């Protein structure tokens, strides 16, 4: 009988390419996420809207179906920029819900158990860490926003023909960029909050509150000062403005004209905001707090 000595041995096998390392984090995160029924159900729910819209598109081009329905769908729900803007709108809402649920524990958990040294003592940089944590959301949200969006677009242009596609290519762009602005905002926001607020519930609340409060402040400033620039403090309003400009539907909410913000201002505010988040993150994501 042979006895096998289990001594310490170094690892000589192949290593994974460096660029792909940050994906390890989302991969492991999803293992836990989809272990929970709630999340899986919610995630499934996020695909209801795309499905419905796919059906609508299909009906549009299925003459028999059109005939069957006495009223003509074409006038009720025309497939145009608004159609897709509505789509992005709904999906980003779901994205928000997902973020509120999944965002908070991302980094706070590691900080609470000071796990960061364990990540950073490996060939794994702070940037990779943050990107990895963010991509947990990036990927998930992408899967429910622009990816199905573009698919819908392809589906439509396949049925409608190249001409439509050519003339409406901007919509594809709008869907893509519009989704990404939200994705970036949400991911960055939740990661930052998660890095600063230890306690999960509070973090969720903060994420929620930020939108509501900024909203309130925005309008209060507007109301009190009789000005429109309060909108700059209003995250939702900023995002709305950007969406509108992307989908060439200025002021789709039909606000009094004096409230409408210039798009450029909105973009700048968004950029500033993201930059600020990034700054906060770098303050917190460290192997060790250096006390002076």
């Amino acid at each position: 009988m042979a006895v096998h000595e289990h001594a310490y041995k170094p690892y000589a096998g192949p290593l994974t390419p460096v660029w792909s390392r940050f994906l390890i984090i989302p991969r492991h995160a999803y293992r836990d996420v989809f272990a929970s029924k709630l999340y899986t159900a919610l995630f499934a729910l996020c695909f209801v809207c795309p499905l419905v819209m796919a059906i609508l598109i299909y009906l549009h081009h299925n003459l028999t179906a059109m005939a069957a329905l006495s009223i003509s769908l074409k006038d009720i729900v025309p497939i145009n920029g608004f159609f897709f803007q509505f789509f992005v709108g709904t999906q980003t809402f779901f994205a928000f819900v997902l973020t509120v649920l999944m965002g908070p524990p991302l980094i706070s958990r590691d900080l609470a158990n000071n796990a960061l040294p364990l990540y950073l003592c490996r060939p794994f940089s702070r940037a990779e860490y943050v990107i990895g944590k963010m991509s947990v959301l990036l990927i998930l949200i992408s899967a429910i926003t622009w990816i199905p969006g573009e698919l819908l677009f392809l589906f439509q242009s396949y049925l409608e023909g190249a001409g439509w596609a050519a003339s409406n290519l901007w919509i594809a762009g709008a869907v893509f960029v519009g989704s990404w602005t939200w994705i970036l905002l949400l991911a960055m926001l939740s990661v930052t909050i998660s890095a600063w607020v230890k306690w999960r519930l509070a973090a969720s609340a903060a994420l929620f509150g930020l939108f509501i409060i900024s909203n309130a402040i925005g309008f209060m400033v507007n109301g009190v000062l009789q000005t429109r620039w309060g909108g700059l403090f209003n995250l939702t309003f900023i995002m709305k403005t950007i969406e509108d400009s992307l989908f060439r539907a200025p002021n789709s909410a039909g606000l009094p004209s004096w409230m409408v913000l210039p798009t450029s201002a909105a973009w700048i505010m968004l950029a500033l905001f993201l930059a600020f988040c990034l700054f906060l993150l770098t303050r917190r994501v460290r192997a060790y707090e250096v006390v002076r």
Partner: protein
Amino acid sequence: MENAINSSVEPLASVAILSEGSDEPAKLAEPVIHLDGLSVQFGGRPILKELRGELRGRAIGLLGPNGAGKTTLIHTLLGFHPPSSGTAHIFGRDIRKEAKPIRTQIGYLPERDSFIANMTCVHFVRLMAELSGLPSEAALERAHEALFYVGLGEARYRQLGTYSLGMKQLAKLAQAIVHGPRLIFLDEPTNGLDPPARQRMIELVRQIRDSGKAHILLSSHLLRDVEECCEEILIIKDGSIAVYCNLEEERRANRKFLELETRGDREAFVEAIGSLGCEYALTSERRLKLVLQNDVDIRDLYQLAGAHKVQIRRLNFKRDSLEDIFLKAMESGNGDGNRAAGMREGGK
């Protein structure tokens, strides 16, 4: 790209490992850690001052008073803090330029208890292995291997949060060795462990050392721990090296000092010892110290003991050599850095 680096390193490694056997080739081999005027400051306050030296030992004990910069040194070598001036080389790689490739070669057991919540131990160690660049399956294998090695049995399927301090420490050790590093930093590995757990940890460190496959830098406040698992010691005092020397040589140095504890009528026995020409001192009614003359052997002592019906209850060479070294280093100023260098040359 990582692979390339590895292959380029391997031969070097083999040299290092070969050299473990005998001291001679060690000089030729690449030093494990080469401190090259390494200095670190926090907010203008110097923490490490111009550290210089070549560490080669298989297990190096890192000692020093609180705030001397032990942990800072480890952190700097890991690339957590940038050196304010100078640098260090690990396996010949510059920590300033090649932090990543270095870190693939390093395992680290942090002092504060750190883990990732709601994860089973296996999952945790596997994740850590993957972060070190192991492919998923290999990582899983290695994770189980490492956990088996540190002796976490069924417990490895339990949530880390439920672990006792000792188990957490073992889990931390597992994650430090899972990717098979060639240099392992252990920062106070026995801190807060109860005696059995502590002994277990020390055993493991010894085994890793004796495998000769990895070098160990162990920082601890318990001289006993260091004495039990380290061959060389590096003592840091307010930011500079006070001593770097080889424990074995130190021990051999005071090999002639013997401590005895006896039972039975020892008068005659002691006189007899004296008549052998050994100086002796009676430290208590049962204990005595004596200096062995070259021609005298312990067997002779037993001869006498037998002759005088004396029991030698306890017999050992002066063991507290490390304590001596440490205390000496502490009272004498930093001028000792030179002495350290001297010792290093003398040592090899």
